């Protein structure tokens, strides 16, 4: 990569964010509106609010819930998806029920889950799991179903053991679709993390943002929203890093199929 192409790429990536921040900065600069403070004040609040004890008290618990919930959903979704995708009878018998459960918006389960788990970590994590499992499950099922017939025959002819058939054929073959489901689930996880904390907890990002709003700490509230956005960007960058490593064969194959 030459220096010019590197600069051009950097320009494409950072161009719009820089413009938006500049726009926000300029339009809000002299603002007297209480609910629309100047960006400079929000930035000050950001540093004060989050680079301190609040990070351990609120940001970390949220991230831990997110991480645990997402991980459990990933394992459960892939596991169930492989089973549902592999066995026709299972698929036919549970697919209608799956459609029903999938159609229920997860936030609506929060009141019910509070009844069962009470207010606390378990409820938060459960909401994240229940919401995230669907995109992973459905994508994995589809990926497993569409494993190439000839590849399956090949594995059968060479007498692959069931374990190697799973790890050397089914999962790699379905991995592009599993990754697509996992990517969707990641944004769902962030949304549900916040929503579950809005309802009922004593710490966490969602909780704190609502507290700021109720106590009229408006710059702090804005800074919390910015932090959420930044967490989202960071997580999706981490995700893409791992995805591009695991699926380099897939992108390479797609490129070569298109004759690039």
């Amino acid at each position: 990569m030459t220096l010019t192409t590197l600069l051009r790429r950097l320009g494409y990536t950072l161009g719009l964010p820089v413009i938006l921040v500049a726009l926000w900065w300029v339009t809000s600069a002299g603002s007297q509106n209480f609910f629309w403070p100047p960006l400079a004040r929000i930035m000050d609040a950001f540093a004060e609010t989050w680079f301190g004890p609040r990070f351990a008290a609120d940001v970390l618990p949220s991230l831990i819930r997110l991480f645990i919930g997402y991980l459990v959903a990933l394992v459960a979704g892939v596991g169930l998806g492989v089973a549902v995708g592999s066995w026709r009878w299972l698929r036919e018998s549970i697919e209608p029920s799956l459609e029903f459960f999938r159609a229920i918006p997860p936030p609506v389960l929060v009141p019910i889950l509070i009844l069962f788990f009470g207010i606390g970590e378990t409820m938060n994590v459960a909401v994240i799991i229940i919401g995230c499992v669907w995109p992973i499950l459905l994508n994995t099922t589809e990926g497993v179903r569409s494993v190439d017939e000839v590849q399956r025959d090949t594995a059968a002819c060479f007498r692959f053991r069931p374990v190697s058939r799973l790890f050397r054929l089914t999962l790699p073959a379905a991995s592009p679709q599993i990754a697509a489901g996992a990517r969707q689930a990641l944004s769902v996880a962030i949304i549900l993390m916040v929503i579950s904390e809005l309802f009922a907890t004593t710490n966490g990002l969602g909780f704190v943002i609502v507290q700021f709003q109720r106590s009229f700490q408006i710059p702090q509230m804005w800074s919390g929203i910015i932090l959420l956005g930044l967490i989202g960007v960071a997580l999706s960058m981490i995700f893409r890093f791992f995805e591009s490593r695991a699926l380099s064969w897939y992108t390479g194959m797609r490129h070569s199929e298109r004759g690039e």
Partner: protein
Amino acid sequence: MVPDATRLPGTTVAGTGPEVMLDIRHVQKIYEGRDRSVEAVRDLDFRVAAGELVCVVGPSGAGKTTLLRCIAGLLEVTKGEILLSNQKVTGPPEGMAVVFQEYGRSLFPWMTVRQNVELPLREKGVDRSERARLVDEALEAVGLAHVHRAHPWQLSGGMQQRVAIARAVAYEPRVLLMDEPFAAVDAQTRAELEDLILRLWQRLNVTIVFVTHDIDESVYLGQRVIVLSNSPTVVLDDVKIDLPGERDQVTTRSRPEFSRLRTRIYQLVQLAKQQNATARA
């Protein structure tokens, strides 16, 4: 590649060889559909001796692939049985390798060429150093030693099929089934691959069943050619190919016996098509 002369073991193992490797006994295959069933294969009955190279030829839609999938244990036969070394085939048997027509789809794109060739050996429980040796030899034999770290999709179609052949060869099968393996490669590559198969067959002393719709290819490669009828399939004829053991793309194909044999088989296949047309009329 210069088409190189290949010496065949020839008559020593043909037909009358002592050990029967594959015994196809009155095999019938009916596909049961929801409201109708299709008889793809009516009655196939033939034997293949150990070390023989038998070509199976027939018009398209003749149930060639059905037969091969039955032998490979991927399909259950409706009637009759298939024996491999006197053992009934009920699922994919030990010591058998298959090269499919769809080379691109039979290789695992997430693995390198080397990993693709090595994987069946791991499944077989071959230890590490032995695996490395077998993979190196197989890739060397198909002329792909230099690309072992590439992924299959980085290679041309002909090279991909070579990888599939290397994978089968490294597995050291007793029986190698090939299902129209060269149908999708260009003519020049095809000739090279045919000679490659002859060389490997002679070196490894493996039994090969080679399914093709190409009559010339069947005569060029086979010691025997089994001619199938249209579906529902029966064996029309079992033609012994009495060409000299040494085969060469140019001289073998221009011999009078070659054209006599290909004419005979061509007429048989034409007859099969006509019979089918009159039967339907």
